[in-house]
């Protein structure tokens, strides 16, 4: 074989790369800023699937809310306002029947009309999918009344139906009947009512998603950008570098990278996103007897130096708290358990455990970024000082399985701020999803049942009492409230502090 052509090919290829490099260099615009017509978003993690019925929440909500406007809109103060809905009401007492009427003249991105039948199809589909939010609302049946009115008959009462039909929990992200009939298309495309629609030709699942304006959006004046790209950047350093190179306009940072981003001129905003807490799962002392005594659980709370741990772990992007964060908390209980090792020891002695005891705890390891395991290790050191010996096991992708395995008396995790109703069904109810020992508390169960059937201020009051009881009973050892820092360039306007998570459509991006 004549090698000359091969050598020539290699040389030409090297030259081509070199020329391209020089071309880039001469322009000096390798990381060219985008015009105002394009918005570039960076998210630390993307959707598992584009099917809202099967996906989780958090960062992907930014993407989803640009393609799927919800029936209701969750506001910064955790209330919900109608969005695609013109009227709504609970029918009768007890929060068992909920009725709403849709706005007219609205179309999905595939052009089909939004009407009661489409919403019924969507809600029935949602209820049958194995999604993380499927249990948040138990709908017995869906009825349509006329072309635009939908009536939900609930299998169990819920005071927060509007919230559960908002962006929170994806149920409100109604998708077209055509897509529901073909779930494979729903998993890889967007078929909601939204200002933008996914362009599959310019997207790679799990890496980047390109959105283009929807032809059918009901308010064209709100479509500010000709193109939106959402890039998934799990590596926090890569995200920081993307900001520094001005390759993204808006995105998630973390406490370790946010200060550097600010130094680079990026505007950073942050607000309450969730709690880092140790949940004392064996709170009836089934396997670890001392935890059955409220004095022991309170002692574990008093023993933690929250100020020091918070400062070390998240700095200004969080604050110490004694309360598990939900929408209804009592400000007076924020510092219910100040750092007081002496009091902690006294409580342990009073409960009959002057010499302390041992227990096993699991934490989510690196799954929740770089704070999960170090926080738990710091807490374990504080507990050692009062004689409680803790063996910490960092989990990997099996965190929930481990937490449910009954091998651990407690688990550390970082739940998002969520409605009290969902906190109850996740943690406190006897059949809650992460209640491995099936623990229950009559007072808390009663408050939950009462709140379920109440509305407005009454429900808020009841749920506040429920959360106060949880804090007094010390079911958790909350450490700090964490904030997700969001970075944005000067073009991004309208971001309001206070939302649980940020939703794309909230950001003034509509213009």
């Amino acid at each position: 074989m004549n090698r000359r052509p091969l050598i020539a090919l290699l040389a030409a290829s090297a030259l081509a790369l070199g020329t391209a490099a020089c071309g880039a260099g001469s322009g000096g615009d390798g990381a060219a800023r985008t015009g105002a017509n394009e918005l570039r978003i960076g998210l630390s993690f993307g959707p598992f699937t584009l099917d809202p019925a099967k996906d989780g929440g958090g960062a992907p909500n930014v993407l989803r809310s640009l393609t799927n406007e919800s029936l209701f809109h969750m506001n910064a103060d955790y209330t919900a306002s109608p969005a695609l809905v013109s009227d709504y009401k609970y029918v009768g007492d007890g929060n068992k029947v909920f009725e709403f009427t849709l706005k007219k003249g609205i179309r999905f991105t595939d052009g089909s009309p939004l009407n009661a039948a489409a919403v019924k199809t969507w809600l029935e589909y949602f209820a049958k999918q194995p999604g993380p939010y499927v249990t948040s609302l138990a709908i017995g049946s869906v009825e349509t009344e006329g072309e635009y009115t939908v009536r939900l008959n609930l299998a169990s009462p819920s005071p927060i139906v509007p919230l559960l039909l908002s962006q929170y929990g994806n149920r409100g992200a109604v998708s077209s009947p055509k897509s529901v009939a073909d779930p494979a298309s729903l998993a890889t495309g967007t078929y909601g009512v939204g200002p933008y629609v996914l362009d599959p030709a310019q997207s790679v699942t799990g890496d980047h998603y390109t959105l283009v304006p929807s032809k059918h959006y009901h308010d064209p004046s709100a479509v500010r950008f000709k193109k939106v790209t959402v890039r998934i950047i799990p590596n926090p350093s890569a995200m920081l570098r993307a900001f520094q190179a001005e390759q993204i306009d808006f995105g998630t940072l973390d406490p370790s990278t946010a200060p550097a981003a600010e130094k680079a001129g990026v505007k950073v905003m942050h607000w309450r996103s969730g709690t880092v807490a140790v949940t004392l799962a064996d709170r009836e002392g089934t396997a670890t007897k001392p935890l059955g005594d409220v004095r022991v659980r309170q002692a574990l709370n008093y023993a933690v130096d929250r100020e020091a741990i918070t400062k070390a772990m998240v700095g200004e992007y969080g604050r110490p708290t004694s309360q598990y964060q939900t929408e209804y908390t009592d400000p007076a209980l924020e510092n219910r358990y100040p750092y007081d090792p002496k009091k902690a020891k006294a409580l342990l002695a009073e409960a009959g455990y002057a010499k302390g005891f041992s227990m096993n705890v699991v934490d989510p390891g690196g799954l929740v970024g770089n704070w999960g395991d170090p926080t738990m290790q710091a807490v374990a050191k504080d507990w050692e000082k009062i004689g409680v010996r803790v063996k910490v096991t960092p989990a990997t992708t099996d965190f929930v399985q481990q937490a449910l395995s009954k091998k651990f008396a407690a688990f550390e995790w970082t739940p998002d701020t969520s409605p009290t109703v969902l906190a109850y069904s996740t943690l406190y109810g006897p059949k809650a999803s992460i209640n491995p020992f099936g623990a229950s508390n009559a007072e808390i169960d009663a408050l939950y049942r009462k709140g379920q059937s109440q509305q407005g201020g009454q429900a808020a009051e009841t749920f506040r009492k429920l959360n106060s009881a949880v804090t007094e009973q010390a079911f958790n050892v909350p450490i700090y409230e964490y904030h997700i820092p969001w970075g944005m360039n000067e073009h991004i306007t309208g971001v309001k502090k206070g939302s649980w998570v940020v939703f794309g459509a909230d950001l003034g991006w509509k213009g």
Partner: protein
Amino acid sequence: MADTSIDAMGAPLTRSPRGRTLRRRGTGGRRITSLLARRMVTAVPLLLVVSSFNFLLLSLTPGDAARAILGTSGTPEQYEALRGQLGLDLPVYEQYWHWLARALSGDFGSSITNGSPVLESITSRVPVTMSLIVGSLLVSVVAGVGLGVFSAVRGGVIGRAVDAVALVGWALPIFWVGSVLVVVFAIKLAWFPALGYVPFTESPEDWARSLVLPVTALSLGSVAAVLKQTRESMLDVLGSEYIRMAAANGVSRRSLIYRHALKNAAIPVVTVLGVQTVGLLGGAVLIESVFSVPGLGSLVVGSALAHDIPTVQAVAVVFTVVVIVVNLSVDLAYGLLNPRVSAA
């Protein structure tokens, strides 16, 4: 004359660095066909072993796809129902058998987590990873061989300096190099993008620009390895008696270096290139993460975390096929470099 001299002096290799006995045989397409046929035959059990082992390892990793989908919600009944729906409640061998039966008919299934057809995911990402690997190989060959020859021929301080720089390049962690390149060339100088990949079909120039930094970071180690091997082999060959004889016979220095010495030094270099190519597959996983590039590496990492068995399996098969092809190419290259030498 040179070729016969080489043979007359005894071919520099009687045994390949890969440990296989090299035999002299007649040339011709028959040998290549037979080599291809033998490799095809061994590829089948190899693919079976790799895919079954991979399946087993996946089944042993903590957690499962059902839990990844449900997160912290869902009752135990819902969890069990989903496991059943996904077929995760079946014994591992049965799950593997189902996968294999489908895979043999060309159906690699759909992602458990996002429902995308696995073949579609793979085909959209193969060009990205191949761009990285082929680009890195080109750089390794051009820079590694060029600098290796230069270092061997020039010797002295410059030669040792090149050698030392190569060693440093080899020792530096790939993700660190990637980060430094981004800080200097993307953030400070703004010559190249800090992350992302532009398809060739969209813009060939932007495609090349998006590849420069990741390819540079990825190829650094293999440039060093190729450089070292080229230098050593060249020094060996240049010091051999037949080169001295050829020089005494009046063969020009240029011809001596490029026509005679380099050709004989090439076989171990090709071997190193083969090994490096396989190593580049692993390196690509890291580089794709540092530069947020949508290749097979980032696909397999994300899928493994989500316990997405069909996707991980398919990527494992692709990687195995690449390794098989690379090894075959190395053996074919031996034959091309010295038609009288072929792998047994």
